[in-house]
């Protein structure tokens, strides 16, 4: 079992969701995130004064998957989120010790699927 965490551009969420659904990955969690990476921010102007924004809005996606689905998930996220420009985001994969479905008490891979 692995947890796939991806930080992507907010406006790419729909595209990523669509790609994931195509590969039959339906269970995801999404949160808003602020982050600073290679993109180094941008400037807005407010009443004529420049405002430096260096924490950019990102979307964090978390998907818990079983081993055979890890690569599929990663590929789908990349297909949806890649534009080729700086700021497309990052994907992290980490092991999951255990997972439990609260309703039924199921454990392990049975609780993920």
């Amino acid at each position, binding site marked *: 079992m692995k947890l796939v965490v991806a930080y992507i551009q*907010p*406006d790419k969420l*729909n595209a990523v969701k669509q790609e994931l659904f195509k590969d039959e990955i339906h269970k995801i969690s999404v949160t*808003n995130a602020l982050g600073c990476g290679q993109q180094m921010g941008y400037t*807005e*102007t*407010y009443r004529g004064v420049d*405002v430096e924004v260096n924490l950019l809005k990102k979307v964090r996606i978390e998907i818990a998957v079983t081993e055979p689905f890890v690569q599929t998930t990663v590929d789908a996220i990349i297909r949806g989120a890649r534009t080729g420009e700086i700021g497309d985001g990052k994907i992290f994969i980490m092991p999951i010790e255990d997972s439990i479905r609260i309703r039924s008490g199921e454990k392990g891979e049975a609780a993920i699927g």
Partner: protein
Amino acid sequence: MKKSKKIFIFTILALLLSVSVHADELTDTLDLYSAAFDAIWLLICGGLVFFMQAGFAMVETGLTRAKNAGNIIMKNLMDFSAGAILYWAVGWGLMYGETAGGFIGSSDFFLASGDTMNWFFQVVFAATAATIVSGAMAERTKFSSYIIYSVVISGLIYPISGHWIWQGDGWLTALGFHDFAGSTVVHSVGAWAALMGAIIIGPRTGKYVKVDGKVSVKAIMGHNMPLAALGVFILWFGWYGFNAGSTLSGTDLSMTDVAVTTTLAAAAGVIGAMFTTWIAFGKPDVSMSLNGALAGLVGITAPCAVVSNGAAIIIGLIAGILVVASVEFIDKKLHIDDPVGAISVHGVCGVWGTLAVGIFGDLEAIGGAATRLGQIGVQALGAAAVFVWVTVTAGLLFLIIKKTVGLRVSEAEELKGLDIEEHGTESYAGFQIFQNM
């Protein structure tokens, strides 16, 4: 202030007590007072109608997404500001100037006559027509292109069809067409321009998604229902100026009759729309019920001075039902993306209100055609003439804009939001908004 009040009271007393006052002087004084009443009434009502700009801005902001809030405020601000100056320079003359064959006004440009009382009351109507369009084209229109559009509608499109109906010597007036406060003159004009704009610009990205060759209709939810509701209440409030003020006279006591029909129709519009959604979708829908109030108001705008209270309720009820059906039809069948329902509220219900003059109106009070059928015919002809005029001119305008400066923002810009991309700033700084929605 105090001094003039004293003089006023003193004069009234003098008029009442003195038997030696010359009859001419008496008439002069009464004329002066009645003119003052007219000016005060039109000033108050003009102010109320101006406040409807705030209503439109709030409705449109509330029913669209947070990332475009500042952009829609800018559009509402700019179409009044650009429109007012154009209406002063050209529009007023084309609308109320001396008629050229009943089709177009040809004098009084730059308000040469100095008729400030009537100009002020009319400019806010012109602005109302102009501002209807921003809602239907929301969330995807290039700001610079929108400014060009608003100049043309206030300076050219609205005044010319307005001339046909309200100038007194227009060709539709001659036929007996009656539109008391502007179901056709104001609301339909705005709505048909909105229709052409929405068609030519196309839907927002993600609104109509093709799945297996079939178009699937997605809802793009507005971000602030309380703002939308505030906007509707402001519009309703302003509508008392819109309709009751259209007596154009502070001594015409039918102004209160108009306020009553306006109230009843708006109330019935809400009830009609709410029950329609309750029956059709299982729950009473908030934003549709709000649209229902506006539908009732648009519906009663033309007939408010010539129908009974009972008829006003029927007109409002039908407008409320009609607006829900029309929103559904335009969205789900025609696939025209109108985020706030402007085409249904102002166009469809505007035509309904115009026809309702013929169906329910007191023929004597209208003073148009001799028979009821004749009056309905004239009303239909007027509505159709304005439809053709506006769709052709506005259609051409939007096509020309599309071919030259471009009408639509890029898809990337649309996804990021028009606030950041068009204006370089956010409307909700410090809040986390979902840009992806």
